[in-house]
């Protein structure tokens, strides 16, 4: 693949990752969030596939397929089913979206500052967009910290995870395959566990509003 085209496509998929994260902060209905998350998964898979093709590395390409299946399809489907079971709830986060959006801009600046030392890890388009991965990590944190419902927190966790994966593929073209598989399985398990816990919390509390989880103090 030509270098300039590669660099453009990497920029484009990184842009899609960032855009989906920003829209996730703004749009807080559950089904909308899950769709955006799925989109983000696809964008991540595209990025991985691009790196795989560019480096002519079959392993990376296979990982891209896995990422697509897991983050683009399986996890969103799991979340959707979980959301459907509890009925569409409007997701009112702790922070008003306008403030959250401006916080995103600040977080982006922070991410750029943090990523500055990483610039020496290589040159070329993949190194340039590392800050996007870091921004994703921070936005994931934001979503997690301000999400009121179980699903919203889950989405935040997955955005955070996508961010980490983005940084991993951008800096090192991914970690060794064994570790990669372990990570993907762990993420899947965590999501499954949180799903089961969501169900149980709903059975016990009657809702998944995590504001109610205030019995343990001190």
């Amino acid at each position, binding site marked *: 693949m030509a270098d*300039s085209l590669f660099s453009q496509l990497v920029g*484009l998929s990184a*842009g899609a990752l960032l*855009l989906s994260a*920003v829209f996730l902060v703004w749009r807080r209905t559950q089904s909308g969030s899950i769709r955006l998350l799925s989109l983000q998964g696809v964008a991540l898979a595209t990025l991985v596939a691009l790196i795989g093709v560019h480096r002519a590395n079959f392993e990376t390409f296979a990982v891209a397929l896995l990422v697509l299946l897991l983050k683009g399809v399986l996890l969103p489907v799991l979340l959707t089913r979980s959301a459907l079971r509890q009925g569409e709830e409007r997701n009112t986060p702790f922070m008003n979206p306008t403030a959250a959006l*401006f916080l995103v*801009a600040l977080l982006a600046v922070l991410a750029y500052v943090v990523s500055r030392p990483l610039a020496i890890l290589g040159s070329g388009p993949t190194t340039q967009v590392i800050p996007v991965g870091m*921004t994703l990590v921070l936005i994931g944190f934001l979503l997690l910290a301000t999400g009121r419902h179980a699903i919203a927190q889950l989405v935040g966790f997955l955005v955070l995870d996508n961010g980490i994966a983005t940084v991993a593929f951008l800096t090192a073209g991914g970690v060794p395959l064994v570790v990669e598989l372990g990570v993907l399985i762990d993420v899947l398990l965590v999501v499954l566990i949180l799903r089961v816990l969501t169900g149980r919390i709903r059975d016990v509390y009657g809702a998944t509003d995590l504001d109610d989880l205030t019995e343990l103090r001190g």
Partner: protein
Amino acid sequence: MNTSAVLLALLQIIVMILITPFLIGLMRQVRNRLEGRVGAGVGQPWRDLRKLFAKEPLRAPGTSWIQAGGPVLLMVSSLSVCALVPLISTLQSRLIPGDLFVVVSVLLLGTVALALVGLDAGTAFGGMGSSRHMTIAALVEPTVLVAVFALSVPIGSSALGDIVRARIVDPSSIISLVSLLALVALGIATIAETSRMPVDNPATHLELTMIHEAMVLESSGRDLAWLELGSWLRLGALLGLIGSLLLPWGMATEPKLLAVLLGLVMLAAKLFVLASLLSVTEVFLAKLRLFRVPELLAGSFVLALLAVIASYLLEAR
């Protein structure tokens, strides 16, 4: 060079005046057809204008000169924008600075004129519309400014013509991260600025939600015609700017007849494509509740800001 640039600017004005009513007609027609109605035809806005221009403006007692001057001022601002924004060619004269900041301030002038017209009659709806419009404008103008600024950073010039020319030279920069973020921000800002869905519904007169229609409620006849044409021109010019940034091909880079003709055809094509797209998406969108609008605009502003950050830190190396 200078004369030809002035001539081209004049050409842009004339072309835009001719095209934009058809553009609006097209958008309405597309919407009508998609919603299963016949529609009044593409030429209807022109017929409306002709009718309005022929009518004497009725002004409510107690209104001031603003009722007559505001529409003209809006028209002047819109025409200036049409002249300043690179639409047919990227040529710019020193006489007419197509600078980003100039364009935004001229746009703002029109916004203020429109808001004053809404306030002048002292009716409840006019005031409401003006206040809403100013709220939106306060968020939109910085977004436009920041978004285009992000595009100007890699080029090192804030002249719109230079930005577009650089994109013709290096088309790959169009799908870069910076460009993507900036264009999405600019798109949202354009929709809000020109009072389209999902910010305002141009097709209703529902007093509780309308923005643009509320401001022009007290104007009639010639005044209304100026206001309508002025607003359409703004939409046309902003769509044209997005078109030039997104698809800069075919624009004249030198003052030759053939190139200019090509630029003209391309402009028309770009505008019609973008307008149809906008219209199609509008069919699928529901209007946002008013207090959600600032969220949308804050989002677009953040995107523009991200674009600036990205442009500084990515392109610097």
